[in-house]
């Protein structure tokens, strides 16, 4: 899947995460800020990369501003941001592989 335009999902509320995806060249450029980065930074990075791979996103700038979200929340926000960036807003195939 190719990121067409910049899109966001999520909020800056406690226990949520705000994900921004933007078009980019040459792979996934990941930026993560989180109050729990020392304990869960590695896990957040892994989930982000796995989700991008699962959705077939090869080139994207992904900015994650985490407020202590659980892994399920992070996945949902990542998917939302990606689908919004390609204009899919109905019948979203949540959790599905490569669309």
């Amino acid at each position, binding site marked *: 899947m190719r990121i067409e335009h910049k899109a966001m999902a999520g909020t800056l509320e406690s*226990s949520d995460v705000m994900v921004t995806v933007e078009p980019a060249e040459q792979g996934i450029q990941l930026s*993560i800020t989180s*109050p*729990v980065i*020392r*304990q*869960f930074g590695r896990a957040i990075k892994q989930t982000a990369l796995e989700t991008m791979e699962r959705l077939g996103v090869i080139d994207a700038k992904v900015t994650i501003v985490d407020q202590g979200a*659980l*892994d399920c929340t992070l996945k949902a926000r990542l998917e939302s941001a990606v689908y919004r960036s390609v204009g899919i807003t109905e019948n979203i195939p949540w959790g599905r592989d490569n669309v």
Partner: protein
Amino acid sequence: MKNSVGREIPRELIEQGWQPYQGKDAYNGTEFQKVGPKIKVADQGSEEKVLNSIEEAIRACGLKDGMTLSFHHHFRDGDYIVETVMREIVRLGFRDMKLACSSIGSAAPIVADCIETGVVTGLTTSGIRDRIGEAVSHGKLKDIAILRTHGGRIRAIEQGKIHIDVAFVGAPSCDAYGNASGKGGKSNCGSLSYAEIDVMYADQVVVITDTLVPFPNKPSHIEGIYVDYVVEVNEIGNPKKIASAAARMTTNPKDLMIAEDCVRVMRALPYFVDGFSFQTGVGGPSIATTIFLREHLKELGIKIGWIVGGVSTHMVNLMKEGLVGCIADVQDFDLGAIESLGTDPRHFDISVSEYANPFNKGAFINKLDFVILSALEIDTDFNVNVLTGSDGVLRGAAGGHPDTAACAKCCIIVTPLVRGRIPTVCDRVVTVTTAGDSIDVLVTDHGIAVNPLRQDLIKHLNAAGIEHVDIHTLRDKAYSIVGQPDDIQFEDRVVAIVEARDGTVMDVVRQVKPFSISED
């Protein structure tokens, strides 16, 4: 060398004479000689101690580089005293000062600046937060900070481990001869217990007030016999931040559930009989526990004999309803508590030595039945952390937590299982502030666990049909929700010693390591 909670005590600390923690009862029967302060006898011809400014008081005290200054924390986030005094210290060019605070928080960001610039090079406190915690955790303080419990701080003063050169005491009212009170002024805080021992052991004492009243200001919390100088200022603090209208009752359903379960546990134990003693704080589940106790007390036709520690309106209300015999107060959290202190003869203040000092001839908490406490983290050995955050930075307070937990017949920790993505129940707490040997029961929103050291309590809970699980089950549940956290990485350098109440080393806090996501 490892101490009895399995923490490695660095060899250089052992070489400096520090001893590892050996359990909560290791010091019983210890004998020691108390120290005393140097006294400058009052000029019999002078009837006043009032000076015109803090600068004058600093000069009159003969303050020198390297001296130790003490402060109390009764004004909490509304405190102007630390900021005002330290501004003068900086302006007059002093260096290398050592601070001995009962606690220090967000009200004195100047202390963080002083640590960065070397005006302050030593610190002992029970609580440390915000920029000051950041500065210490990032290795900016020259000395190793020593974090002490409320009771342990008094022991250290009486042993001479903390020698206070000058104690600065903020007082809501004071007369010109130094009789000071936590009431009777514009910014009342109620009890002044944390300052009471400081003034007895400091070489010199300066009371700072914004309400000078006629002599004698009695009843006083601080007696003029201990006071060298009195300074009047415009404002000692922000009254709105010193005391709220009333500590608020939580509406968080998790907190309410935890509190209900906590009261069920209490009721199932043999200590829950007429005249029992009780202490708790002002966290969400703690206040809810205080409120929920009412129905149970009424139903059983019993009352609480006495409450000790920090006081909120909710406790005062229980006393007014005849459900509490008396309140022994060391700190007031809201206006209702401040108003009641000393007005109702059943509500009196006690010094922090009388409250929690492990090295006297018997503190109030030695007779305590129940204490309800919170935790940032608790591990599967029941060790509790209330000092360092999940990023390893100092941002909490030992306070009376380790003191009361060690002494109470039943110490119950009330906490949600997870906070955001932080698991409260974990394999290994970042910093041990309270040893697992002091913690008896854990009540979370996902279940109850009892310390296996307390088979007697397990028997009573089983008899009452109260379900409980192994603490490892709660840890697994927490990790199943948030994932297993990585260990926090630290530098080797020790930035703070967490001193057990008896003066041994419970744990050390190391400098935080810069973190980068790309390093893995």
